[in-house]
């Protein structure tokens, strides 16, 4: 008999960090630090001359 499992997304605590107005030159650094901070997803969207960078980060269970 099969069992019904929860989807992993509903079990994890996540936080979303958004930086608006990041310049082209600074964008790689912001993205790199977000990856080093264990982001599970990072998006950069150009808005005019600058970027909006959005990162999804898993919060450790202890928090």
């Amino acid at each position: 008999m099969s069992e019904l499992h929860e989807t992993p997304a509903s079990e994890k605590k996540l936080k979303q960090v958004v930086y608006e107005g990041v310049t082209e030159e600074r964008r790689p650094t912001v993205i790199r630090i977000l990856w080093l901070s264990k982001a599970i997803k990072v998006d950069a969207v150009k808005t005019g001359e600058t970027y909006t960078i959005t990162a999804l980060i898993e919060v450790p269970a202890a928090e």
Partner: protein
Amino acid sequence: MRTAFMTTVLLAAALGLGGCASFEGYPSHSVAADEVSACPVSAGTLATLQRTDYDTARKSASTSDAERRRLRNIFIDSCMGAINASYRAFARELTGDQKYFNVGTDVAAGGFTTAATLAKSARTKTFLAAYATTILGLRSSVDKEVFLGKTLTALTAQMDASRKVVMVDIIIGRNEPDSDYSLDTALLDLQELYEAGSINSAITAVTADAGEKSKEAKAEIKEFRYKSTADAQTDKIYAYFAANTPGDGARLSEIVKCTSSAARMTPMDAQLEALRVSEAGSPVERAEIVGCLKGKNLIQ
């Protein structure tokens, strides 16, 4: 996603029924009298006779509440027995059909239509085929665990749970005097018990539950939004960090050590705090980092 699914299903149902001339969107204004007072599951003439005994007792001024309660409970017990027997047979059919799902059948390819084709009982076929009309083609929007491979397991579990909830109400009602829990009130609960054992009711309950879980999952995501205030000090910090070159992780650790607001944070939060100060903090906070790095002779 699930809200979108429900909307699409309802829309599809509305469009599908829109072409039917008899579809008015609300229940009929008249029903047969025997349907109002009958047990939802027929057990021959037995329940009808019990109902007559109860109604006769109720009309008589000399019949005590205890006697009416006794007659009411005889009806309730018979009716519950009939509903339970009917449900058990239905659940057995579903369990039998479940075996067909597990024999390497690509249920996903045909959804409920395939399931309906494979279902060995005519009754299950009818139920599944009816839902296939609205659900077919919408699978990508649906939680596969609920609506595909584990459909019948999930729905049967939901029906069992819903029935238990209603049964508690009926058992409590059985102990009440007839004046507080008449047979007609009991019939509402008995009808609900019957409905709780239907696939229709189970899909509604599972979908509602899934919607709640979706909301809970969304509530777990906290958002931190910052507007860049970066300046020349930021560039000095970033130049030291030199993203994507060997050792940038170690250099980030040095920046973190120079970020006083990150002192008591976990390592990951401390890195995020160092980024916040560097990219969206105040000039004073950034000057502190630059001064610290200079003090360690890490930057000029």
